[in-house]
């Protein structure tokens, strides 16, 4: 009130009040705490961790998934505290690449990694991470690959509708050097980057002795061990804020490979109504609780094509935050279909979370296809031709019929397998 009094005693107009205020450098709004020295930073103090940025939609802190195209589809990146579930393709060729790009992004940004697998040793997984493309080279490599993709025929087609040629194939926002990098799938990450990084590995056959007698309990012992391991790392390294001596906050990136496969001790891939069919769903529930209370993000790859009970897939989807399905064309009839000849498979974005929000960040592009070029993994919009001839419509109707068969959960026993009775 003293400040107002000094302003008021001077003159009545606001102009002179402002003049006196600027002269005496005192306003009625006093900032609590020390004032920043610079002219910027007048806002609240943000947590600034390398490799993260706040989302422009809902303010969540985001990390990059390692593929800038995927980041764009997910609304800028993966939110910290959430789970990204990748439904593996049938022969498990492309999902390990997404998994490794996520981990490589963590190494490049200096995040701590936790790699869990029942299939291969985490040290071997880290040796096979793709090499990052540095900023000055990345634009060149990317453009070179895009140029190779364009054939002369496409230039002729665009003679009349030449304005469409100027549209980019997939709008990818500017990639700054601090968020989102491109990776070269044909090269390995340099050894010194791996050694400089902080990582923890969980290899299931080492942690569990094979002659252990399995008691019937709600969670498979493999899952219990993994949850305890994750919890220990989070607590000891202070990702949940419990360790106050931590000088600089960092993000923990967790990668779990092939979750739900029989090698984890879970029988949802083997039997329809197994003895512990709730084990995986309980694991995901507890994992999500651990993630929400710590600065961590998790990627999980799961062989959902092997899961026999379709209702479990629906529950797993609900318990994860972001779910992406990969469908490769290898071995299917689409491999020889000329419509899909430029691509290696389809990407289905099955779920995007609503975090502190009423709507989710859905992109308007629904039919997406991916392609593993010589170096890069790209995601593009799939353009299907218009429904003109008989053959085109027949194949698309077949695809629709197949997809409805897959997605229908059915009820109880009818959910098993792909065939269901048509009444």
């Amino acid at each position, binding site marked *: 009130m003293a400040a107002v009094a000094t302003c008021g005693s001077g003159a009545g107009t606001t102009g002179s009040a402002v003049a006196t205020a600027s002269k005496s450098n005192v306003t009625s709004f006093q900032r609590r705490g020390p004032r920043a020295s610079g002219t910027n930073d007048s806002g609240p103090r943000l947590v600034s961790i390398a490799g993260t940025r706040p989302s422009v939609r809902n303010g969540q802190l985001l990390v990059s998934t390692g593929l800038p195209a995927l980041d764009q589809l997910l609304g800028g990146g993966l939110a910290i505290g959430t789970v990204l579930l990748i439904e593996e393709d049938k*022969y*498990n*060729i492309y999902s*390990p690449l997404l998994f490794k790009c996520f981990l490589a992004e963590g190494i490049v940004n200096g995040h701590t990694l936790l790699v869990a697998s*029942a*299939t*291969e*040793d985490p040290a*071997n997984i880290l040796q096979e991470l793709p090499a990052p493309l540095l900023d000055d080279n990345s634009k060149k490599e990317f453009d070179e690959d895009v140029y190779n993709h364009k054939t002369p025929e496409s230039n002729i087609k665009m*003679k*009349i509708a*030449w304005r469409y040629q100027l549209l980019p194939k997939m709008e990818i926002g500017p990639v700054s050097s601090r968020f989102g990098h491109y990776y070269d799938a044909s090269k390995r990450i340099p050894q010194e980057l791996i050694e400089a990084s902080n990582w923890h590995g969980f290899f299931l*056959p080492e942690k569990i002795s*094979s*002659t252990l007698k399995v008691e019937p309990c709600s969670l498979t012992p493999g899952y219990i061990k993994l949850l305890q391991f994750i919890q220990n790392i989070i607590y000891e390294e202070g990702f949940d804020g419990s360790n106050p001596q931590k000088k600089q906050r960092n993000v923990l990136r967790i990668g779990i490979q092939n979750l739900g*496969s*029989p*090698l984890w*001790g*879970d*029988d949802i*891939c*083997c*039997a*329809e109504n197994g003895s512990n069919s709730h084990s995986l769903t309980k694991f995901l529930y507890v994992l999500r609780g651990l993630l929400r209370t710590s600065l961590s993000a998790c990627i999980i790859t799961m*062989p959902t*094509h*092997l899961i*026999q009970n379709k209702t479990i897939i629906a529950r797993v989807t609900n318990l994860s935050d972001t779910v992406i399905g990969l469908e490769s064309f*290898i*071995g299917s*009839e689409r491999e*020889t279909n000329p419509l899909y000849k430029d691509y290696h498979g389809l990407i289905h974005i099955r779920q995007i979370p609503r975090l502190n929000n009423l709507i989710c960040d859905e992109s308007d592009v629904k039919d997406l296809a991916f392609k593993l070029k010589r170096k890069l993994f790209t995601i593009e919009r799939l353009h299907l031709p218009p429904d003109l001839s008989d053959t085109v419509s027949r194949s698309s109707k077949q695809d629709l019929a197949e997809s409805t068969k897959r997605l229908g959960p059915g009820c109880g026993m009818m959910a098993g*397998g792909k065939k269901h009775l048509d009444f």
Partner: protein
Amino acid sequence: VTLSEGARAGIGRELGMLDSLLSLGGLVLLRDSVEWEGRSLLKALVKKSALCGEQVHILGCEVSEEEFREGFDSDINNRLVYHDFFRDPLNWSKTEEALPGGPLGALRAICKRTDPGPVTIALDSLSWLLLHLPCTTLCQALHAVSHQDACPGDSSPVGKVSVLGLLHEELHGPGPVGALSSLAQTEVTLGGTKGQASAHILCRRPRQRPTDQTQWFSILPDFSLDLQEGPSVESQPYSDPHIPPVDPTTHLTFNLHLSKKEREAKDSLILPFQFSSEKQQALLRPRPGQATSHIFYEPDAYDDLDQEDPDDDLDI
């Protein structure tokens, strides 16, 4: 019908996939059915690896030892190490030669061997093991066995392990079969037509696309493998051979094709929205006929001469 040696050598590389099944290592799944049985192929592969000098262990669970050894000559029989689980699967006789831990214990004991060199383990059969053991335990054991050569840090380099598993497809649902086939490095599905057996071989290498091939073969009485050409050429599975592709442009009353001259004319045509320098000049140059153009207009009875008063009710 056997081919001549020359012809066989020429296409030997292509037919070599069945021969080289064992050299890839890992789990080889032999899926058979009632019509096309797989035990003879299993015995043929066992004989081949025994002749190559590898150690061969057999876990016999489904048939008796005498029946399995039948048809092999004595030197091969001496090389086979047979673990018999058929006669006394639950170990009721409690003899000292019974192996502890059942079949899985025997598998682990084979893996803990100290001498290097390639090993082939034949499981006769995986179906029996699936029916007696939980699927997850079996999968974990098979994975540990087939990936043992990949573990670093051991003192002695352990040779490659191949596990041949015979699986009767019809006994199991899609779950266990799918789980085992996702673990397997090679999957051989037996089939055939008209008395000729074929093997559809699907090879999954870890980071590469799976390759598949269909191989026609027959097993000779001494259990050696005879590779053959199939009865017909492999047809494309997804195109219908009875309906030839129809070219819709053949019997039309109008012409859809462009001759060379027409194509050139089309390519050199400047489209209306392409802005070229000639067009710019043409627009900027004043047209010669423009000054003399007139507009002739005859007003109609209904024409409105006063544009601002549409209803004609202003009385000015």
